[in-house]
């Protein structure tokens, strides 16, 4: 049955010169699991928001959009609120109430459910999501992952027919993100709920979904089954394919011309198994390990807590940062990663322990998780100029991070990805000896991540040191020299990147999961390609 039907839909924001959506013809059927992907700014969020009447942004709209045969603006208010559920990107701002139970009940209270009905529904859904553990907590005490599950649950309690999600996992750690996606899969399979999901980290979504829409410049470029999309995109050799498809495409190209494009880790493992004797040997390129380098900064036995009675967030934490290297902090939501960055930046004062800098090298730039905290001027251009760097440098960075069109805008008017890039540009221009970044790859597409990676490498070549916190395992594997896992407030593993990832279940890349039996230390797409370059 047709759920949504979009005909010749064109939409333009008042501040922009170009339409964000162009002539979109699209039909979504009941029971589908649709992935929306594409580079940042391609119109994913805008398209999703067009399907939920209550949050449709202001702007000029042409074309029609119908929901179950009725034009969207004419649906009854209650039906619209109940049947179309929307989960936003930022887990914090969409929470209305102060405690978990009231937040869950909020939507049902609006639609006049009886008290007994609400309690029954909440009880049922809590067991489905395993939320019993934090049902009585206040919102301030929840981790990011818990908040996003709460948001999903509070939307589901209204029993929507269709669920629209705008990058819901962008702030979740790898374990929580996988879990969240599996919930969506179960909802789709067990209850026949229609799911539309936009996502930058789509590796794990491809095997789950039934249809992929690849958007480019505001129009749907490819609309097909995931396998077919992967096949078409890998033939074009773009970056926008999942790691699984990437690997099988390379195998097909170099080893086994009969290989199918596969979307799961297991299928790829089988494919490798079949061609085991035809695979060339591979050793990781040995990093010239100069251990003699003096550390730029040494954190020694740090203890930190926020309140007198509260538990320690950092417990007996030690860490050294070598000069000119990039170190990556990984760990679950709430394990103390951001707190450590703030302590090093000097924002938080530890109760015990020392942070020792190399003599005369104490200068630091801190880029927070939320870019809006960083900006202090009215235009992006002022923000960049305020650093006082050379004109030429600014120009180059602006063009490499594709910020040219944003220069005259207010930072608040930029999209999430653009804000992130602007902040990165400011951070790089400041040329401090230590650059601290909290989730720099968030909201960036594959291409921009690669740009950011090479910019960071240049920064290191000029003598800068980088410490970053990320949930993006692929980014860490590609650009970090050292990786460090935080658990329960202290470092449990501090190693070179290759040693760190090999053998992990969750904190490793999909490439490594697929090839680990043959090449235990292989992590990135680049390394896969290096297999055949040597021969």
């Amino acid at each position, binding site marked *: 049955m047709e759920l949504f039907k979009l005909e010749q839909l064109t939409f333009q924001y008042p501040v922009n010169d170009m339409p964000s959506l162009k002539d979109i013809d699209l039909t979504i059927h009941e029971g589908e699991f649709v992935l929306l992907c594409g580079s940042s700014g391609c119109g994913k969020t805008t398209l999703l928001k067009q399907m*939920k009447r*209550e*949050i449709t942004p202001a702007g000029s709209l042409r074309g029609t959009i119908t929901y179950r045969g009725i034009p969207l603006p004419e649906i009854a*208010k*209650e039906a619209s*609120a*109940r049947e179309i*559920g*929307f989960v*936003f990107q*930022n887990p*914090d*701002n*969409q*929470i*209305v*109430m*102060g*405690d978990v*139970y*009231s937040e869950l*009940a*909020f*939507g*049902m*209270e*609006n*639609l*006049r*459910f*009886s*008290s007994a009905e*609400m*309690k029954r529904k*909440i009880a049922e859904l809590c067991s489905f999501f395993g939320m019993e553990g934090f049902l009585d907590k206040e919102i*301030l005490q929840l981790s990011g992952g818990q908040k996003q599950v709460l948001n999903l649950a*509070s*939307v589901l309690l*209204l029993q929507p027919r269709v669920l629209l999600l705008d990058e819901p996992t962008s702030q979740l750690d790898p374990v929580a993100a996988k879990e969240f996606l599996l919930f969506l899969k179960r909802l789709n399979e067990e209850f026949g709920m229609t799911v539309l999901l936009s996502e930058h980290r789509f590796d794990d979504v491809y095997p789950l979904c039934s249809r992929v829409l690849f958007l480019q410049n505001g129009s749907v470029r490819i609309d097909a089954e995931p396998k077919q999309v992967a096949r078409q995109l890998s033939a074009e050799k773009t970056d926008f394919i999942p790691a699984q498809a990437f690997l099988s495409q390379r195998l097909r190209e170099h080893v086994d011309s009969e290989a199918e494009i596969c979307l799961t880790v297991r299928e790829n493992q089988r494919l490798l198994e079949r061609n085991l004797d035809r695979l060339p040997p591979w050793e990781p390129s040995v990093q010239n390990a100069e251990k003699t380098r003096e550390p730029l900064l040494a954190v020694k036995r740090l203890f930190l807590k926020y309140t*007198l009675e509260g538990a320690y967030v950092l417990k007996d934490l030690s860490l050294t940062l070598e000069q000119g290297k990039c170190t990556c902090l990984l760990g679950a939501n709430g394990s103390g990663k951001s707190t450590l960055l*703030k302590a090093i*930046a*000097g*924002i*938080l004062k530890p109760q015990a322990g020392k942070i020792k800098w190399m003599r005369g090298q104490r200068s*630091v*730039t*801190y880029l*927070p998780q*939320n870019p*809006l*905290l*960083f*900006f*202090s001027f009215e235009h992006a251009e002022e923000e960049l100029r305020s650093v006082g760097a050379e004109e030429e440098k600014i120009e180059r960075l602006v063009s490499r991070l594709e910020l040219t069109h944003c220069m005259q805008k207010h930072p*608040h008017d930029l999209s999430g990805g653009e804000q992130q890039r602007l902040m990165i540009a400011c951070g790089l221009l400041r040329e401090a000896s230590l650059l601290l970044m909290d989730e720099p790859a968030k909201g960036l597409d594959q291409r921009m991540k690669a740009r950011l990676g090479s910019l960071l490498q240049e920064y290191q070549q000029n003598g800068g040191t980088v410490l970053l916190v990320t949930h993006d395992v692929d980014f860490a594997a590609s650009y970090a020299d050292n990786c460090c896992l935080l658990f329960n407030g202290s470092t449990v593993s501090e190693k070179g990147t290759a040693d760190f990832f090999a053998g992990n279940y969750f904190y490793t890349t999909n490439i490594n999961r697929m090839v680990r039996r043959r090449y235990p230390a292989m992590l990135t797409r680049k390394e896969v390609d290096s297999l055949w370059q040597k021969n």
Partner: protein
Amino acid sequence: MQTGFQNLNPAVSFVYLLLAVILSMVLLDPLLLMLGLVFVFGWCLLEKCALDGSLLWITGTGLFVLLLNPLLNHRGRTVLFYFFENPVTLESFLYGFTAAVSIMTVFLIFMVYNRIITPDKFMFLFSKRLPRTSLLIMMCLRFIPALQQQYRELSGVQRVKHPVGRKRRRRETLQEAFRLLTLLFSGAICGAIETAQSMRARGYGVYARRTGWREQRLTAADLLASVYILCTFLGTIGLWYGFDLKQDFFQTGWQPLGQPAIYIAAGFFYAFPILTEGVERLKWSFSNWNS
């Protein structure tokens, strides 16, 4: 901690807190008020609230009232000394002390109120009658700590970004604070827009009246508690007005009140939360003992 007083029906706790505030403002007798202060402070200790900086702040306010009164009020017979040719009397000190204790007690009761009447209890009390207003109040209440936290984060980040020397002119400090406030509010407004969208997306405003998920019946314990509270309160206030027990500080100085029963009634009223807690603990240890 979900024991004793916290387990009572929100309506009963709310009424008790309200009556406690009324008593603490009406009974202007130093001994009675000290009795109240001691019990209310004990209650604070039990609920682990008002033990941080706010205790200092409350004591400071009390001291201020205590000292200010004798400086401005020169009535009374017993002159202690002259301050800038103005008499400072024992009676005005006594009056200041009484007022200070009254204010401190009321402040402490408000601290406990914050701990006991959690937002969801507040909603339970008022959401049926005033659904929209109570939601608005509740959201505002949530907004304040959120804004405080946001301010802390923002100022931290901005301090690292624009480091300033130790010596700053007052004007620069002011400018900096103003800049931070502007940033804070523009950020908060953007966040609020998203919250509003999320509310509408979940059907807020579809119907004029909302329902509430909370329902809590009056139990036997609640009824018993209400009777106890009303009896002790009415006893105290009845004695106070019935026998016109007002202290005339400036004529007679302090004298014990004519009806000692009022001390007992008020004592039982103020001791109520501690008693409920004690009863609960006794019950607990007995039930564990027998089994």
